[in-house]
């Protein structure tokens, strides 16, 4: 066997192996997706959206309480996280730039993005839940805000930096003060990018379960008072899936399906925004 033949054989072996591993990896992932869709569609019904939680065995049970709770917890977190993140990102890109302070903030936010979310839950337990004496929707929102903040901050920073400096200079030349340049020129130029960042940030925190376990806790019935413990899709999913009751497990799959579809659509939407921007 010549050297060339040997190389070709090794090449073919590696190609086959890596294609196989790609198939195995992708196969597993589609298995999970398939399971999710099959069980999810099977469990979906109108009751899911119109009924609250019920003891196991009751037919009229649904996820209305968890859907509304999830919407409120994530909504409030977005309300806080987005403006704070955008303003902090603005500082990095427009004022701090390459300064040591700005670089440190970038590094720390990068680390925070991958930090374990359950630890954020423990932190919020210590600063919100313990002093209040009970779990609350607010505590859940605070935890999600902390997780969302670095994501929005870094994408805003990146997106603002993509705005060409000639645009800023042109606005300065017209005599506009810096805040006006930022608000009316830079933000406008980076609109699609910032929006994508927000969508991805919301998608990320919407799937968080661990930091809600001991902040917003759970409630099997509808509650719209943020001062009280609140149901979320993720924690409800966890509790229902680990229960021994089949109808609860079914509701858990429905919650998993709704949540995943929501998160996937946000991700796809975000991609479309970015693509549209590149297409211009």
């Amino acid at each position, binding site marked *: 066997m010549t050297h060339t033949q040997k190389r070709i054989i090794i090449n073919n072996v590696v190609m086959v192996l890596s294609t196989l591993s790609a198939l195995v990896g992708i196969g597993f992932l589609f298995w999970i997706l398939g399971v*999710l869709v099959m069980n999810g569609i099977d469990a979906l019904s109108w009751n899911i959206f119109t009924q609250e939680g019920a003891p196991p065995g009751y037919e009229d049970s649904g996820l209305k309480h968890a859907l509304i709770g999830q919407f409120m917890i994530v909504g409030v977190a977005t309300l806080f996280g987005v403006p704070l993140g955008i303003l902090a990102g603005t500082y990095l890109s427009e004022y701090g730039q390459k300064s040591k302070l700005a670089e440190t903030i970038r590094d720390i936010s990068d680390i925070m993005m991958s930090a374990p979310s359950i630890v954020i839950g423990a932190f919020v337990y210590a600063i919100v839940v313990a002093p209040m004496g009970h779990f609350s929707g607010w505590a859940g929102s605070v935890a999600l805000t902390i997780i969302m903040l670095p994501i929005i901050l870094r994408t805003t920073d990146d997106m603002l930096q993509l705005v060409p400096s000639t645009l800023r200079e042109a606005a300065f030349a017209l005599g506009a003060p810096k805040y006006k340049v930022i608000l009316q020129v830079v933000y406008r130029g980076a609109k699609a990018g910032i929006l994508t960042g927000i969508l991805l940030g919301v998608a990320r925190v919407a799937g968080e379960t661990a930091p809600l376990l001991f902040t917003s806790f759970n409630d099997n019935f509808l509650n719209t008072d943020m001062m009280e413990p609140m149901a979320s899709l993720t924690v409800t999913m966890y509790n229902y899936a680990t229960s021994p009751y089949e109808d609860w497990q079914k509701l858990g799959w429905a919650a998993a399906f709704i949540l995943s579809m929501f998160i996937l659509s946000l991700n796809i939407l975000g991609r479309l925004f970015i693509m549209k921007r590149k297409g211009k």
Partner: protein
Amino acid sequence: MGIIIDRVFANLTKIIAVAVLLLVAWIFTVLLQHSMNSIEYFGFDFITESKWAPNLEKFGALPAIYGSVLSTFLAMILAVPLAIGVAIFLSEIAPAKLKSPVGVSIELLAAIPSVIYGMWGLFYFVPIIRDAFGGIGISMLTAGIVLSIMILPFMAAVTRDAMNTTPDILKESAYALGGTKWDVIKDIVIPYAKAGIIGSFILALGRAIGETMAVTFVMGNVHKISTDLLQPATSIPVTLANEFTEADTDLYYSSLFELSLILLVISFTIISIAKFYFLRRTKVAS
């Protein structure tokens, strides 16, 4: 007037940006404060003691630390070769028509919440392990496998990005010399993207060690150190998720906070190594 608003706006953004730093410092301080009780009571024994018995007020973190390390290690052993395979497939082998749809679906799978991986693990993977190896199916091995599947899409996507940073001209030169695809991959792409690839593995490791929901379903939360992978076990996040709302004494609470602090320090260290040592030059992770 404009100047005042200008100054207010500039300072507002700066205050919020600095607040992010302070927030991180605050997180560490609060966790440390709340751990003080247990740190003072157990000292260094907390990390080396293997007995965790809340009813006896005895708390040793060793089983949880051991479980975190072992499950992450298992997940890495399984996920690294698969991720490299998927990345090579996506960046070098797949025809152009497949590259983008497969690549995008892998990225989308990375966005699926980990609680769903955990749920799938509980309902579909636990029975398989139970049938194949006996036992109850809830075990260290199951946790390692579910964890590896959860980090696979993230790892594959970032590894692919790192491989894609190799300039085409380098690869073309190697092909022109008569290199096979594998020659090009092992002698050009991997050496060029080495730092990025290792960095993305370590980043995935940092995520895996702090992952809660993918493993909570299938690990069992049993505080026992066992070399038998088919035994139920626990890890730091699993202990926190299961016991935080049950803690009834100050020492119990404090021990759980110390566990959180240990976890935060471990993952902060791992992620920093990945970011600052390996990913600094390549900038692939963003």
